[in-house]
């Protein structure tokens, strides 16, 4: 075995492993802790310092510190590290900052925020908060939260634990939680966030924070989540005096919960992954920062990568719809990604998931395998479904509205026999399966996706 000092091949293998993880699970690029670790493995302390400090900027934003303060700190420390005489000091500084950062990550993980649901709501189902949120988190949240519209109740000294703002509500006298309506300057999946590592990780996993129009929170507190557009920072979630404020409720209402499951889980549990493994990852990285350079068994440096792989491999979400799609950017789409929103709009509390699902949604051109329990399969054009005895294909030529299915396509079996247009009932894997072929599943009549509970 080659020692770490001369173990260039080992380092090369480590970087290749890291690149592979990033390629397979791009959201893990938000794991700054892993990158700091990688820099220290490469003995590139200047890069490690720069990454650590830039990560701390996000953390500083969490505490509501003005943006330029940590930026100034970064510049200062990097300047110090460039002085050759101070290099050993810079290395110690790096390790110290890195350790502090990991401790901060552990704190967020161990002491998560607690959500609650507004007890009284005047909104109709898809815009309510509660049903889908409970289902996504797998528990019944306490009903002691508030909508901001009910702030008069808050004035009556009712102590809520969570307050959800709403961008439709104008600021008015007597509103204790002054908000200011603003428009998102970017597409949802192009936004930049200032937040803890875990929340950024979960938002990357969801793809975005669902918010077209929002209400900026004006008061000071712990900035749980801020939107960043160049140097403009807009706090949208703040903790103050033990109360969790959200500037806008969009991400929590039933119709959008299926698209924000990872964020919601992180807010409630501190992570959207398996918590013990996530905690173990931070602890091991922390240990390596302290003793890593004196290790006798350099192969141990791969443990953090293995833990990240485990995090993703064990990542399971119980839900109703299993989506196979490369297109996950816009929940209001008419396409396959909009199917969960459509079900919520129809009063069906369905979530996306990969465990215990009952509907399989194959986007156009995608392939999927039928699992036990999945009795309805919605297939886009040119998609392919594998079952125990072969395949089901859909055609490419649009067939208009057929069998009550808009934007329908033909359905074929292994022998290229036409088994239906738009819809077909088939016996697959020994049970009755309903196949629907359309590229506009959000225009389906809800009866097509309604399942017996």
């Amino acid at each position, binding site marked *: 075995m080659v020692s770490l000092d001369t173990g*260039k091949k080992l*380092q*090369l293998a480590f*970087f*290749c492993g*890291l*690149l592979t993880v*990033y*390629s397979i699970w*791009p959201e893990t*690029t938000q794991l700054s802790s892993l*990158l700091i670790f*990688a*820099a220290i493995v*490469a*003995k*590139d302390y200047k*890069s490690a310092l720069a*990454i650590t400090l830039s990560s701390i900027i996000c953390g500083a934003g969490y505490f509501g510190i003005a943006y330029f303060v940590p930026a100034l700190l970064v510049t200062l420390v990097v300047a110090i590290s460039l002085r050759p005489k101070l290099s050993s000091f810079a290395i110690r500084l790096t390790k110290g900052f890195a350790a502090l950062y990991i401790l901060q990550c552990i704190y967020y993980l161990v002491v998560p925020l607690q959500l609650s649901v507004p007890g009284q709501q005047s909104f109709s189902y898809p815009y309510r908060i509660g049903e889908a949120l409970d289902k996504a988190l797998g528990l019944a949240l306490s009903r002691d939260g508030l909508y901001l519209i009910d702030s008069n109740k808050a004035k009556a000294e009712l102590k809520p634990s969570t307050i959800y703002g709403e961008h439709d509500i104008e600021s008015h006298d007597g509103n204790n939680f002054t908000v200011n309506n603003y428009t998102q300057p*970017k*597409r*949802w*999946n*192009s*936004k*930049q966030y200032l937040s803890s590592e875990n929340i950024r990780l979960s938002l990357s996993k969801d*793809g*975005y924070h669902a918010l077209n129009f929002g209400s900026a929170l004006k008061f000071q507190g712990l900035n749980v989540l801020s939107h960043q557009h160049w140097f403009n920072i807009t706090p949208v979630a703040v903790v103050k005096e033990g109360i969790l404020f959200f500037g806008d409720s969009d991400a929590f209402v039933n119709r959008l919960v299926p698209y924000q499951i990872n964020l919601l889980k992180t807010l409630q549990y501190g992570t959207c992954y398996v918590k013990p493994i996530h905690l173990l990852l931070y602890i091991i990285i922390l240990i390596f920062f302290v003793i890593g350079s004196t290790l006798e068994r350099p192969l141990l440096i791969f443990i953090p990568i293995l833990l990240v792989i485990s995090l993703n491999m064990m990542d399971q979400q119980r839900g109703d719809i299993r989506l196979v799609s490369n*297109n*996950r*950017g*816009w929940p*209001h*789409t*008419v*396409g396959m*990604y909009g199917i969960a929103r459509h079900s919520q709009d129809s009063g069906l509390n369905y979530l996306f998931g990969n465990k215990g699902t009952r509907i399989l949604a194959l986007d156009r051109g995608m392939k999927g395998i039928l699992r036990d329990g999945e009795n309805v399969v919605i297939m886009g054009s040119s998609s392919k479904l594998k079952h125990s005895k072969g395949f089901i294909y859909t055609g490419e*030529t*649009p067939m*208009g*509205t057929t069998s009550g299915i*808009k*934007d329908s396509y033909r359905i074929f079996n292994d022998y290229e026999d036409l088994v239906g247009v738009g819809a077909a009932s088939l016996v697959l894997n020994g049970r009755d399966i309903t196949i629907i072929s359309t*590229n*506009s599943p959000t*225009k389906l009549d809800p009866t097509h996706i309604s399942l017996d509970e």
Partner: protein
Amino acid sequence: MNKLGLLASAIMAGGSFYYFQNGGYFQALLCFITSAIAFGSSNFGNTQKLIFSSIVLILSGISLLRSEMSNDFLGIPILAGFVCCAGMIASKLPNGFRRIILVLATVMIILPTARYYFNSSIYTSQEPSRAILKNGLWAYVDSNNDSLSIKTQYSYSLLLDILGADLIENSSMEDYDELWIITPTSPFDAVQIDQILKWLSSGKKLVLIADHTDLFGHTSVLNTLTNQLGLAINKDAIIGMQGGGGKYIDFLNSHNGLTPSSISGRAISFMHILGYDDGIDYSNNSFFNDFRITGEDDLSLYTCGVVGSYGKGVFTVFSDSTLFSNFGISRPSSQAILKLLVGITLPSLLVILINMTATLILGYAVTNSKKYAWVFLIALILLIYILLLGKVQGHLYWPDDTIRASGNWNIAEFGDGYSTPLASAYFAANGFPKWTRRSSGQFVKINGRLLNSAKASPRFLKNDQDLKACLESELDHTTELALGLAENIILEEINYGSFWFNNGVGPLRENILKRFWGADNKLSISPEVDKFSCKYHLKDSLGVFEISGRNLTGEWFILGNGIVAKKIENDGFLIRKQWQVHLIHSDNIILRFTENTGM
């Protein structure tokens, strides 16, 4: 570390991504290999730091690109990552092997240029005999009858005249040098495809015009032919950076375009559009999607015009047909693109030039050999020669009553009050605007006269007492209020099409268009006021109301506060949104008479 080599590597990596995005997988692979070799050859020593800084670079790239662009641009930093890894491996390859790869890559890059150089169709006559193939029901060439109906305006009769082309059936193409096929909707059979390909390979020129969203199945039809040429027209619609129509970019210029489809495959692109793929929704009218820039729309530099060679012949594909219709051909951008299409089929100068330059730098960087550099330089000279050939324009037959137009193209195409009157020039001015010069000034000049957009706007009505008397009353009210209709009026299903012209734009607007071109006003309104009893549907009931109307001309009436309506026999009034001089808040509606008026 050889910085020149790194630059070459970056350019080739970009080329690889471009080709991959546009379906040119072989070229993408080639660019990738050369990029990796350049990267590997340019870096010796400091391996770990190099890789680590590459990772940081990749992550910075992801962060930067994510903030401004679509997720799909993640492909660039990921590609960079793979180039880093492959480059490490490539750096261990023997020099001889690397040089062989380099020479092969160069040959592959030069080959398309050489094929054009020796292609006979480049030297065809300056006045080729042209034909437009009659195929299907969408693209038709009914002649202009001076009316503003869809049938006339969405025709290609002007294009037919300007090309000096004949309209032919499939079997009679042998006598022609150049064949145009515009959005065909009747499927080609194997015999027809074979016939076209044989004709093309004998040294002819084929121009294929497609459009967005596989409308009426034309893309499916065209692809049966283009697949034989190694191309695919994608079933999509590309919208511009701000939504709506995009800008078509060629080597030197940009042109205002509409919503083309993208093209991919083994050909050289000469026209691009930077925009978003809005996708396709077959359950919508015209198969357009939501026309909004959303997270599901991929941002890229899409190809909308390509050229390629087949046998001795040359083909061109352009994926926007609307520009060449009777109402689009008067646009300056349409005419500029038409000149490109009929000129010497220009290879993708931009792509080839970048490839050549990159290869030149690459060759020198990797080999440090002047010998190789000379080979690349010769290739570059060959390219420039082709470039010069590309300046030759094909002949066009402009109409006799052409009027010379110049000025600001953007104003002419998008300026408030300009685009529709200019598009209707043939109808309103009895002349066809031929654009000669492009100017950055804020004016449009035709036949030496500055056009005043104010005359094409409702403000012009202030000088018309008859119309003014009719229209000035109650203009503050919305149309629905004037009609006494509730917001939940049920709209009639009306089949309408063009976005610039409908089935007649109404006498008021026709009158305004003529005034734009300096024609006299002969329109007046009857002083007699009639009362009409109409009915309308609410959600759960039937409402009845009375509305006043004055006869304008023939079956045309002005209702209430100035709504242009056409009497449908004796059954009711048809009100189209497009006929109105003022903004109308509702969509197209039909008001039924409570009883047959017998008028």
